[in-house]
């Protein structure tokens, strides 16, 4: 009987530990940038910046170090905006300041092509990008 009771208590402690760990993991600060993808080429003068993070996070978006937009993230934890780009090569930086006090920065590189440049097919686009990176 004692052995059964001991096993039961041990199982309960184990389950409680697992639940607490799972909850702690859920509460962890994070930022996931959906757009823009890294190293993309665009023919427009604006790009979409979207993603998801912890609710009540403050998001600052910078393009080549210049602040473009600040967003306060709501209860859904998603954000979406568009920011202008003017250079051929742009580093889009998204700074997340979490309500916990922590902060995190994510950067993406975006290449702007002339609007009259006819973009090649996706496969050759990847090839062009690879060549570009190798040359760099």
């Amino acid at each position: 009987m004692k052995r059964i009771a001991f096993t039961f208590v041990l199982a309960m402690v184990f389950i409680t530990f697992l639940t607490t760990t799972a909850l702690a993991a859920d509460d962890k600060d994070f930022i996931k940038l959906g757009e823009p993808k890294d190293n993309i080429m665009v023919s427009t003068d604006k790009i979409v910046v979207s993603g998801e993070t912890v609710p009540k996070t403050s998001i600052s978006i910078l393009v080549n170090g210049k602040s473009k937009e600040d967003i306060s993230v709501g209860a859904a934890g998603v954000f979406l905006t568009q920011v202008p780009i003017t250079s051929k090569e742009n580093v889009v930086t998204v700074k997340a300041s979490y309500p916990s006090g922590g902060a995190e920065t994510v950067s993406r590189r975006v290449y702007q092509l002339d609007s009259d440049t006819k973009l090649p097919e996706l496969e050759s686009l990847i090839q062009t990008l690879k060549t570009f990176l190798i040359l760099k």
Partner: protein
Amino acid sequence: MTKDYILGWILVIMVSISLFLSSVIWSQAPFELFTMTKYPKGQNIQLDSIVGPEKIAVYMGNLMYLGNSSQTLLRQSSDFYEGTWDISKNLLAELWTQTPEAVEGNKELFIHKKGIEGFFPTPLPAGFLKQLLNVKGSDMPTFDNKHISSYILVEDKGLTGYVADDEGQLYQLGKIDNTAKLVDLINQITDSSPTLYATLSAGNVNLKASGGLYVSLFTYDMPVYHIKREPLPDERQIASFFNDFSVARKIQERDGAVIYTDGQRGLRIYPNGAMEYSSPAAREQKKDSGFYEALKVAVDFVNTHGGWPQGSYLYSYEVKASQTGNSYGFKFRTHTNGYSIIGADNLVTVTVEGSQVKNYYRHVIASMRQEGLLELMTPIKALDTAVSTKNIRAVDDLYPGYIIIDDLLKPVWVIKTRGIEVIIQDPSE
């Protein structure tokens, strides 16, 4: 020239100025009267206009590459909608020459190519779709039972067609070399500088949006309308429900409703203008008419009993097996400006059994007049409101719609979660 003569002329001039100014003011006022027009009785209602896509996503390929936002949405109010749906029907019929094959793949692969994707308001039986598109060959009874929720036409080293079922499985239809029709259409749409839409997806602990939500990056300014209900039906309309109206009795209910019955059929007219008709179930075994025929019977019945309200479409249906054959329950909604009017306040339902209408309910708008514009909150704020006030954690779709509040047709956000539509209103209102 007498004093009265001068005063008379001054009066005429003053009245003329007054009339001129009034006409200027009225001509510039944003009030516009729309009548929810009905097709003339006897005119054949095309089923393809009733089951057409509620939205068509147009992927513009690399022409306007903006991350995942190189796409626009066509709704029924769009100038390109009808042409796109017509081309879609022709191309689908042309491509659907073989039994569709299940393929592994993600729809995201297509959005960087030129293509279109039409989303049906409700998943349609594949057999019905084939009949609608006049697809010949490709006889495969097991596939006919699939429910098709969308179709994709994409330029991919030729023109390839796919259909997706209600579980998200893609099926390839076939391939043709000639892409001109599709490419020309997409180029035309691209040249018109359409509003771009971003695809928003989320999979974190706060919110799950698995399917990808289409949201515009611009403000949603939508008209608010003042509406008028259909008037109570006249005797001629009421008589059309009965074989011999002379034997029908009229019963006045305490709540103001009026019932007409000939002992078998019954017609209840509610004080708010809604009407409900029921006919007895068939006693003998009847041959199942099939989905296509049942829908045609339902649409023709609505057309001849009150008129077919323009902009109405098949919103949902239910097929029930009964002793006398299958029973088909159809729900029709109306859209205005390409956006659906949500809720039971504007609805037509028809139940068909053995090629006969067993139940019919109708409560629709007769006319509407624009009262002004309302700027909806951003789609992101709508999601925030859904999470914070309704505790919604999973979103299947997010779209603007209309609801009826008293005599007003008001735009709102609608979130589809687990098959249920939830209205999201601005908390500040």
